[in-house]
């Protein structure tokens, strides 16, 4: 996607927002001008801090999920025995909405950063695990044979075949689930905490009917999701150039 197209789309959304807010003429939908003003006023005060806290939590969860799901997915994908052993359990757990475990996670891990990072990583873990397993399982045996014939044992196969073969799958899984990660973050931050964008939107602004500030929080959350998505998109283009040949 070109930068200019993205800008045009952004401008169009702002325009529709402005129009609807003007037609509706109610305090619960302030116009974007007012919201952006509130955004820039709040940013240096507390909104900026909440943004950074939320950003830290979601990035830490992504790293944790990738660091655990990638190796395990690879191991399952290339070993028929592990696959037989673990895949039925994954099949059962995968469709459970992990967010329902939030109360338990809060009980076990407390109300600090750890519980938020854990619940988001828990959601992402299965998304990554499943695609990495399938990508590793889908590698052609001819490719493995020919690299083994070059002298590669298990370690070199991981390094030169399985790891790079699954890289696009990991990045795609992350891109697809970036929105989910932010959504889970919002929910996890909406109670029993005093920081993060979820807290800012639900407790600090919505709670005291400060609508422009509340929308500023929504904008910040949207921005967080957008930045995540854009960074992952760029990472994929940089790290997987062979997928973007014309």
């Amino acid at each position: 996607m070109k930068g200019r197209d993205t800008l045009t789309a952004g401008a169009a959304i702002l325009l529709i927002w402005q129009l609807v807010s003007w037609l509706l003429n109610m305090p619960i939908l302030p116009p974007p001008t007012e919201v952006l003003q509130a955004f820039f006023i709040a940013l240096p005060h507390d909104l900026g801090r909440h943004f950074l806290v939320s950003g830290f939590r979601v990035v830490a969860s992504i790293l944790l999920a990738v660091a655990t799901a990638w190796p395990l997915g690879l191991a399952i994908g290339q070993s028929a025995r592990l696959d037989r052993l673990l895949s039925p359990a994954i099949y059962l757990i995968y469709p459970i909405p992990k967010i329902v475990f939030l109360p338990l996670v809060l009980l076990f891990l407390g109300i600090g950063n750890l519980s938020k990072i854990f619940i988001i990583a828990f959601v992402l873990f299965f998304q990554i695990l499943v695609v990495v397993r399938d990508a590793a399982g889908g590698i052609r045996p001819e490719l493995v044979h020919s690299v083994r014939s070059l002298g590669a044992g298990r370690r070199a196969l991981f390094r030169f075949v399985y790891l790079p073969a699954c890289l696009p799958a990991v990045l795609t899984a992350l891109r697809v689930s970036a929105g989910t990660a932010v959504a889970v973050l919002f929910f996890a931050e909406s109670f029993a905490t005093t920081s993060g964008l979820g807290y800012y939107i639900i407790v600090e602004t919505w709670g005291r009917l400060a609508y422009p500030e509340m929308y500023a929080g929504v904008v910040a959350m949207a921005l967080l999701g957008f930045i995540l998505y854009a960074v992952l998109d760029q990472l994929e283009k940089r790290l997987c150039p062979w997928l973007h040949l014309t």
Partner: protein
Amino acid sequence: MIIVRGLTFSYADQTPIFENLHWHVAHGEAWSVIGPSGCGKTTLLYLLAGLLHPTKGEVLVDGQPLQRPRPRTGLILQDYGLLPWATVAENAALGLRVRQFYGPDGRHAPRSQQVSPPAEKVDFWLKRLGIDRVRDHYPVQISGGQRQRTAIARTLAMTPDLLLMDEPFSSIDALTREELQDLTLALREETALTTVLVTHSIEEAAFLGRRILVLPKDAEQEPQIVENPQAGAPAYRGSAPFHAVCDRLRERLAP
């Protein structure tokens, strides 16, 4: 170079593909292996490469029984052998990078050989095989012929003494195939390699193999050897003796 002694092989609980097979390949020989489909040509090659292990009997290469792929055996498969995420130059350097990864441990890489930086050797083979100008292309961007040249460059960069090829040119158009067959002859002259080529094409077997192993459909029948001493020059293709050998092969392969 290769001694196959009393080789029996079957995939789990199936009827054996080979039963008590004996075969001897001397240093520097150029063999073709041909047989009806399903006779186990590819399986035989994988056994020689150390990718599969005999159910009974043994395969010795250079006097050593095979436990795992041998560092100085090169293997070229029909297709899919290149890493799709690596450029031609990176693919050609892969074998040397694997050697560097382990160091000269005598198991994954020859103990004797200095592990030299890949660049020089890879450059030499990319130029020799005429794929230097596509060195930064990815496999999907080049032709089938160029892909096989890359696979050959990757193998030759490791200075093998035995080259195993499994239908290396069968998914390539006719003209390019002849080009690559001529190239194989030239490379064999230059490097004094022992070669074993598995093919389903009678013409290819007769053009590239000075000795031809004809595998039977049934593991209980004896494989036959057809001698083809005149093979080895590009002009052999289309000559009268070449056609005579093709006819003999056709006869032996007929059910």
